[in-house]
């Protein structure tokens, strides 16, 4: 671990460009939550030229479908889901102003290209750590597509939310770099 950078949306070039794949970040402030079904609806709306239910410019989108909250908790377990399932929608959302996504696992070539083209970030949160991550989410409300249940769009207020830069705006990929470093060749 090198330095830990703090991020807060709306993200700007000044926040994004110094970050490199492998950097640890802590996120404060607003993060939107959406997964498969909400992505399909967002991109359909975008293609029809409609106004989206959330303003994407400079925002951070977290791929999550939370578990139900216990009484007195803002949210239930809320770790990242696999990002690759969102790949077919991501380039259009980045082109529309979204600046960062949080999930887990590989992104496809088209997503990585659009991350560079639009100077964005792809961050990984620790999968299977939904209880710990839920404690870093201090506020939660459904802001669109409520009928989708755990697949609705949420607005979260987060504090000290930990993530790692996987794909930076300069084309580096942590998953590739780290395998190169730790692979033991026979």
């Amino acid at each position, binding site marked *: 671990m090198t330095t830990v950078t703090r991020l807060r949306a709306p993200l700007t070039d000044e926040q994004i460009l110094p970050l490199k794949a492998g950097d640890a970040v802590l996120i404060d402030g607003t993060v939107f939550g959406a997964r498969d079904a909400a992505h399909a609806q967002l991109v359909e709306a975008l293609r029809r030229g409609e106004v989206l239910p959330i303003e994407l410019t400079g925002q951070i989108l977290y791929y999550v479908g939370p578990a139900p909250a*216990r009484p007195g908790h803002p949210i239930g377990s809320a770790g990242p889901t696999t990002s690759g399932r969102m790949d077919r929608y991501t380039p259009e959302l980045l082109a529309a102003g979204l600046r960062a996504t949080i999930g887990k696992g590989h992104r496809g070539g088209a997503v990585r290209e659009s991350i560079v083209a639009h100077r964005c970030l792809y961050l990984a949160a620790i999968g299977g750590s*939904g209880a710990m991550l839920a404690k870093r989410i201090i506020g939660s409300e459904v802001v669109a597509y409520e009928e989708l249940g755990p697949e609705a769009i949420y607005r979260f207020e987060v504090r000290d939310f930990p993530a790692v830069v996987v794909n930076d705006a300069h084309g580096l990929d942590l998953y590739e770099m780290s395998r190169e470093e730790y*692979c033991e060749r026979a």
Partner: protein
Amino acid sequence: MIREVDVSLITETVERLCLDANYALPDDVVDALEAARIREVSPLGKQTISLILENVSVAAEERVPMCQDTGTVVVFADVGQDVHFNGGSFRDAIDEGVRRAYTRGYLRSSIVGRPVGRRTNTGDNTPAVLHLHLVPGGNVSLTLLAKGGGAENMSRMSMLTPSDGLQGVIDFVVETVEIAGPNACPPVIVGVGIGGTFDSVGALAKHAIARPIGTTTEDDETRQIEVDILRRINALGIGPHGFGGRVTALAVHVEMAPTHIASLPVAVNLQCGPAARSHRAVI
């Protein structure tokens, strides 16, 4: 001697196992993660395992599921042939236990009734996947997994041919873990089924991931295959969450079955280590 068992006991047991499986990591997996934290050489990998262990503590203290994906419930039921069930359907009793746990225990309902088309959520995480086996005696043994979708999606099976041999099997397992990379939430537990038929080899692999880490197979040859595959997987460099390192798998468990002279089926079922949830009870 016939033993009468009321199915309400099955429902209560399944409910308890579902809650345990989601709130608490079994001791064998916690021990394996703690050993992995010491063994891991990559700083980011080490820190990732620390966060995973912090998550385990938070989940247990607050009775919150370790992962928001509270899984498909898979039940291996070994039912003694001397048991007679009263009070309703055995199958319905299992699903009622799942329903109670998921609707009362703040667990996410993650099952859609039909896989294509409308994909409407069943709302209570039913039905469970049930593997029912009739065994001698008068006990009912239930092994329950709350199986997450992320690692399940990266699992693979192949109908190899006998000439592919053991090397072909090992290569296929390692390749599966390599393709899965960070998607399966490593460090993973790798369940391998070898032999049987197209339909049964997947169940062998699933059964293999439910085996506690550190328990050994009775057969020396199988144990050596597990050791060899684990060594190759941990040389891949993927590491905890794909952030790089030497701990990509916590364990490899192999189960074999007799097979056809023309066949060599192999199935690889991946289980995320951070929220590996299998619990068992004997009634």
